[in-house]
């Protein structure tokens, strides 16, 4: 994986090497192994490289034989060998062994139709000199990022927003609506970002820029319609897809390791990797000193069974607070949880241990219905069918076993779910979560709230739902919402790509092989969630492959300490600085009086509920985010010379 950046000019006024170098330097962490750029009178392309496939020959930007088509690309095309063979049969001549060259010739051959043929995770920018156009594309689920901003007819684009700012041409300002979406969904919903005028290319879409005009098209849509019955060969088909998905993701010229959470999904990925790896498999885990959060016994059980060389990143007191400012800088968005921070530390450990590619278990909970939210949806529907039943609501007490007992007690706890919304509301499944999250709005400064006007994040989400949405089952609708509001914009981004790439580690996601996703989403709901047993078919498959302690273990959500991370021990200096009333007043997003009340409760150890934990992390990360990105122009701070780009730099102008 790598990083890309560039500029497309509306008029032929050229793109300076210095501009491209500045943009590339801002994302150098994504590609420490090499650097390249290409510039002509209309287009500038820059690339920082993490060498994984064809280490010697895969330098970018990469062009076809006559230079008509040139690409900068971040990602992996896992079926590149098959596509290369097909293109060779059609007369294309390849000069390297890299997957990048498949994009060049594939685009020549199929145009945008290339995208449907790709199995992988990717974001790329391709200059087509024949049509004087620039083509941008992003993978189906948004595993890899791509942002852009239009300024005066020119288009600036990059893997991370900090590269856009480093150009000096893109305004650094907040977008209140983007922030309000963060405080509703945990992340802004693409194409929106928390920054004014900066867009995220939506997952599953491409964009073409020509003569100063940009058009965006969708090439992939999610279909959550399920089959009536489970196919007789469902487990065999699942076996083929899991093995094929992992086998393809083991393709690399460097060793591939695995993240091991201790849960079912990452254990499956690592087990299949161990079977297919030519190397002694390396696995990596986060452990917590706080026992309720710690899964080390399960991680160790799997590592022992797989015989992997296992390394752990221990998260003790103060660890999260120490790196949190860096985490926010890489995430480029306010956060509602500290959960990305341990993964930031884990990627650092992984890289230090010499591994730069890992498999992860992301995506499985969404497509195999693993989250408690899906069970909660079923229980709410079950209760609402007999609203007077006294025993039905007691099922809620069984759902959140990992919460302290005092947190799930009594009539009110149950009413929270039952009164959250009507089953006729398209957002029914997510209304309890959205309702809890939007309590952060109570802390808004009056002026910030006024600036939002009539903006309605939930209303916009309802408007965006695809035709046929209400025809899907309640769980299908819930899975769709989970994928578009949380998986793509938060789990794969702020908690996924950005934390891994902070230290130049590429995370590969076998459960998001689109063939596996389409197979799983088509299965009847009961094949995946049987009663209150999640991921049923996946467990059936895993019996015999993994220790019973793993296959029979209920899902434990990955969590990290939130308020205690900052207040349980020595409070970091930046907390008092940023949450000081005068500082909050200057930033203007939150009401200083309200935040002072919250901080008082945090310091007294009283802020134990989800709402106050989310609010504290949201407010603190927003202030860090504001200081990092809106405090001073990035151009003044970004390294400006090509010397900053270090070894391996090459310029092809």
């Amino acid at each position, binding site marked *: 994986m790598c990083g890309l950046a560039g500029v497309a000019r509306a008029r032929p006024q050229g793109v300076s090497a210095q501009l491209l170098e500045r943009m590339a330097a801002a994302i150098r962490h994504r590609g420490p192994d090499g650097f390249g750029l290409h510039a002509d009178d209309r287009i500038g392309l820059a690339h920082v490289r993490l060498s994984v496939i064809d280490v010697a020959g895969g330098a970018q930007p990469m062009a076809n034989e006559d230079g008509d088509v040139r690409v900068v690309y971040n990602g992996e095309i896992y079926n590149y060998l098959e596509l290369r063979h097909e293109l060779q049969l059609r007369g294309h001549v390849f000069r390297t062994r890299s997957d990048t060259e498949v994009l060049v010739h594939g685009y020549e051959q199929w145009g945008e139709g290339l995208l449907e043929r790709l199995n992988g995770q990717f974001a790329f920018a391709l200059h087509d000199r024949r049509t004087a156009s620039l083509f941008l594309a992003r993978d189906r689920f948004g595993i890899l990022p791509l942002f852009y901003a239009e300024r005066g007819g020119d288009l600036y684009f990059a893997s991370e927003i900090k590269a856009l700012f480093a150009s000096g041409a893109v305004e650094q300002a907040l977008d209140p609506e983007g922030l309000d979406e963060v405080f509703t969904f945990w992340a802004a919903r693409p194409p929106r970002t928390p920054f004014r005028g900066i867009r995220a290319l939506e997952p599953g879409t491409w964009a073409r820029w020509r003569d100063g005009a940009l058009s965006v098209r969708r090439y992939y849509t999610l279909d959550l319609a399920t089959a009536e019955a489970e196919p007789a060969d469902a487990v065999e088909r699942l076996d083929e897809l899991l093995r094929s998905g992992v086998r393809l993701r083991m393709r690399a010229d460097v060793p591939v390791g695995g993240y091991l959470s201790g849960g079912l999904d990452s254990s499956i990925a690592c087990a299949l990797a161990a079977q297919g790896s030519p190397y002694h498999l390396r696995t990596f885990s986060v452990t917590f000193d706080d026992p309720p959060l710690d899964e080390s016994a399960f991680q160790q059980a799997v590592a022992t069974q797989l015989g992997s060389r296992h390394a752990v990143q221990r998260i003790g007191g103060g660890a999260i607070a120490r790196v949190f400012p860096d985490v926010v800088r890489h995430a480029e968005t306010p956060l509602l949880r500290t959960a990305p921070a341990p993964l930031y530390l884990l990627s650092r450990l992984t890289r230090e241990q010499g591994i730069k590619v890992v498999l992860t278990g992301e995506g499985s909970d969404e497509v195999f219905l693993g989250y408690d939210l899906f069970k909660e949806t079923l229980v709410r529907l079950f209760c609402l069918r007999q609203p007077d039943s006294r025993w039905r609501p007691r099922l809620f007490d069984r759902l959140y076993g990992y919460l302290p007992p*005092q*947190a799930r007690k009594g009539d009110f706890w149950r009413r929270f779910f039952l009164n959250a919304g009507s089953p006729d509301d398209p957002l029914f499944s997510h209304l309890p979560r959205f309702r809890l999250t939007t309590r952060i709005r*109570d802390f808004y400064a009056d002026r910030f709230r006024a600036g939002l006007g009539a903006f309605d994040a939930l209303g916009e989400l309802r408007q965006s739902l695809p035709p046929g949405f209400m025809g899907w089952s309640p769980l299908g609708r819930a899975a769709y919402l989970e994928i578009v509001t949380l998986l793509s914009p938060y789990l794969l981004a702020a908690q996924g790509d950005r934390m891994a790439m902070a230290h130049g580690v590429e995370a590969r996601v076998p459960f998001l092989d689109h063939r596996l996703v389409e197979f799983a989403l088509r299965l009847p709901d009961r094949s995946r969630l049987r009663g209150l047993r999640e991921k049923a078919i996946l467990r059936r498959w895993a019996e015999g492959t993994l220790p019973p302690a793993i296959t029979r273990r209920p899902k434990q959500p990955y969590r990290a300490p939130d308020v205690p991370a900052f207040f349980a021990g020595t409070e970091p200096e930046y907390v008092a600085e940023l949450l000081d009333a005068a500082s909050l007043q200057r930033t203007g997003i939150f009401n200083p009086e309200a935040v002072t009340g919250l901080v008082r409760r945090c310091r007294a150890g009283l802020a134990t509920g989800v709402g106050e934990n989310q609010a504290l992390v949201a407010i603190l990360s927003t202030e860090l985010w504001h200081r990092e990105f809106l405090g001073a122009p990035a151009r003044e701070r970004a390294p400006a010379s090509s010397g900053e780009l270090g070894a391996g730099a090459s310029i092809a102008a």
Partner: protein
Amino acid sequence: MDQQTTGPAQSEIVDRARAYVRENFLYMRPDWTLGDEDPLLGSGVIDSIGVIELVEFLQGAFRLAIAEEEITEQNLGTLAAIGRFVHQKCHANGSGGSVRPRQVA
């Protein structure tokens, strides 16, 4: 220290509960006027964790024990309901309010 022999008056319970709710659950909304009959739940004032905090406050402040089955909207859904419920409990078992309740931070 004041000594009381008959337990706190209902109005005192309501006032102390209001002060506690304002300080701990409405600190972010200082302009919110909290009337005796305003719902505490469903309106977003108190969530399920908050209910437990409120119960702990009432138990400590008025020296009484509240069972899980008593944690209902009828008993705790408004300040007035809290006043009635706590007053009744204090007088029913005779234990509540015999000593000036301790302050809860």
